[in-house]
C-alpha cells in the first residue's frame, strides 16, 4: 500500500470510532428535539413592481401604499411589539429583516430576530455579509454556559453581565431576557463595533405587523412566526409560518415569486398555479440511508395581478397519516386577507 492508501484507510478507521450520535443529541437542549418550525419558502425575484396588495377573497383593490402601523386599514392583523433596537450601527447598515414569534406561538426558540446589512439582499433574499443581527431570547435559553465553555470572555453591557467572542456579544438585559448581537462568524465586525452596538441597544416602541390575516387554517394549526424581509417597500416579502408536528405550512405575500408548473386554477378570481411534488430525503451525502421518508410539497401560488403574489405552501411526510390536502391549501388561500397598507417603511433604513 502506498501512503495515500494507508492514510485513506486510517481515516476510515478513525471515522468508525465516532460516538453514537444519540449521545450528542441527548446533550442538546430539549427544545431542539421536540419542537419543529415550518419549512420556509424563499420567494425568488422576478419583478420589483410597485407595492400591490390585495384582499384575496375580494375584488382586486388599488395598489396599496406602505404606511406606518397607525394607518392599518385591515382589522385583525397580528402585530408584535419590537422590544429592542440598536441606536448605533456601522455606517451603511440598513435593516432588511424582522422576524418574531407570534403571541400565540408555542414554539420554543428565539423570540425576535432583526438583521441589518450593508448591501442589498440578493434575489434569493439570503443575508449577505457583512451583517449585524439582534436576537431577543429568553434568559432560560441562556447560552452562557456554552459560550463560556467555548472560550468566550465576560463583558459589561451598561451594567449588565455579558459574554463576548470574536463575532457575538450576549448579555442579559433583564433577568428573563437575553440579547445577542452577532456578526458573521467567518468575517466578524471589529470587537469594538460589536460592543458599541450592544451598548447602544435601547427599548424599541415600533411593532412588527403582519401583512396577512389568516382567516382559516386546518384544525390543529396555529400561526407561530412572522418573518418580513426585503430591500425596500417596493421589494419585500412577508411570511407566516404555521408548523404542526411533522407538517408545516407557510403563507406568504410578496413582490417575488418562483413560478412552478402545475394545475391552473382560479382563486377568488385570480389566476393561480397548484403544484404537488416530493423530495426524497434518503441520502446523507455519505451514502448512508438516513430516512425512508418522502417530503410531500403542495404549493399554491396566486398571482394577485398587482405585482404581488400569495403563496401557500404545505409540506408533510409521506409515511404519516397527518397530511395537508390540496383542498386545505386552496381553502387557506381563499381565506387569506392581504393588508392593503403593509407596514414596510422600515425596510432599507
Amino acid at each position, binding site marked *: *500500500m*502506498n*501512503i*495515500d492508501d*494507508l*492514510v485513506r484507510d*486510517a*481515516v476510515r*478507521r*478513525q*471515522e468508525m*470510532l*465516532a*460516538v453514537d*450520535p444519540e*449521545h*450528542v*443529541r441527548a*446533550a*442538546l*437542549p430539549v427544545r*431542539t*428535539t421536540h*419542537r*419543529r*418550525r*415550518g*419549512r*420556509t419558502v*424563499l*420567494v*425568488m*425575484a*422576478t419583478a420589483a413592481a410597485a407595492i400591490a396588495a390585495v384582499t384575496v377573497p375580494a375584488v382586486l383593490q388599488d395598489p396599496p401604499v406602505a404606511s406606518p402601523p397607525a394607518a392599518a386599514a385591515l382589522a385583525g392583523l397580528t402585530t408584535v411589539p419590537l422590544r429592542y433596537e440598536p441606536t448605533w450601527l456601522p455606517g451603511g447598515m440598513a435593516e432588511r429583516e424582522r422576524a418574531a414569534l407570534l403571541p400565540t406561538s408555542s414554539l420554543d426558540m*428565539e423570540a425576535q430576530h432583526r438583521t441589518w446589512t450593508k448591501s442589498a439582499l440578493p*434575489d*434569493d*433574499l*439570503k*443575508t449577505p455579509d457583512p451583517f449585524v*443581527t439582534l*436576537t431577543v*431570547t429568553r434568559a432560560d*435559553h441562556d*447560552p452562557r454556559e*456554552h459560550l463560556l*465553555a*467555548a*472560550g468566550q470572555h465576560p463583558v459589561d453591557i451598561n451594567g449588565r453581565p455579558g459574554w463576548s467572542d470574536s463575532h457575538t456579544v450576549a448579555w442579559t438585559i433583564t433577568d428573563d431576557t437575553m440579547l*445577542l448581537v452577532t456578526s458573521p462568524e*467567518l468575517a466578524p465586525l471589529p470587537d469594538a463595533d460589536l460592543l458599541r452596538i450592544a451598548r447602544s441597544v435601547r427599548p424599541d416602541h415600533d411593532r412588527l405587523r403582519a401583512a396577512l390575516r389568516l382567516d382559516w387554517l386546518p384544525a390543529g394549526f396555529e400561526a407561530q412566526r412572522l418573518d418580513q424581509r426585503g430591500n425596500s417597500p417596493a421589494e419585500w416579502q412577508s411570511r407566516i409560518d404555521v408548523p404542526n408536528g411533522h407538517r408545516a405550512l407557510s403563507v406568504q405575500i410578496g413582490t417575488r415569486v*418562483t*413560478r*412552478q*408548473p402545475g394545475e391552473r386554477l382560479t382563486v377568488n378570481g385570480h389566476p393561480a398555479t397548484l403544484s404537488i411534488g416530493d*423530495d426524497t430525503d434518503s441520502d*446523507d*451525502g455519505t451514502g448512508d440511508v438516513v*430516512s425512508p421518508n418522502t417530503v410531500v410539497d403542495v*404549493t399554491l401560488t396566486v398571482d394577485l395581478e398587482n405585482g404581488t403574489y400569495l403563496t401557500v405552501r404545505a409540506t408533510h411526510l409521506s409515511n404519516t397519516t397527518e397530511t395537508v390536502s390540496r383542498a386545505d391549501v386552496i381553502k387557506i388561500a381563499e381565506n387569506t386577507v392581504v393588508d392593503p397598507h403593509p407596514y414596510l417603511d422600515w425596510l432599507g433604513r
Partner: protein
Amino acid sequence: MRFRIGLFDLSQELSVNFEEFVATRLGALVRYATVVTWDAHLAEDITQDVLVRAQARWARIERLDAPEQYVKRMVVNEFLSWRRRRAARLVLLPAESIEEHTGHLADGTDAVDDLDLVRRLIARLPPKQRAAIALRYYEDLTDEQIGELLGCRTGTVRSYLSRGLAALREALPSERASI
C-alpha cells in the same frame, strides 16, 4: 420537471429547520468531527458546542447556500481555537505506543497493524496538519477548499500536507509500506 425563474430552482429554496438538520445530518457531522479532531470524545464535545451555537443562529444559517458546510466550518474553527488546541494535544499517544510497532516482523496481521499505526501516527501530528490530512482524505477537498476552511493560503495547506505525510513516511517502517 421543475420550472425555473432566473437562476433559481425550487429545490434550492427549501430551508431546513434546525431539528431537521440534526435529525438527518447529526451522524455525518459527528463522523466528520471525529476525523477532523482525531479524537472521538473531543469530537463529541465540539459537535455539541457547535450545534448549540448553530441553533441560536439558525435563522441566519438556514438561509445560507450550504448550511451544513457552514456548520462544518464551525467545527474546524472550534477545533483550531486556542482552547481546543490545548485539548487536541492531549490526543498524543506515548512514544512507546508507536515504537511497539517498529521493527515488527511481517505476519498475517500486518495490514491491520499498519492501519492502526498510521492512525496513531496521524494523532501525533500538529492539529493543523492533522486537520488538513483529514479534510483531504476524508472530504476529498482541494488545497483551495482546505485553505478556506483553515483560514490559510493554499501554499500553507500544501506545506501542512507535505510535512504531515513526510512525518508519516519517516515514522513508518520502510519494509511495511511502499511509500
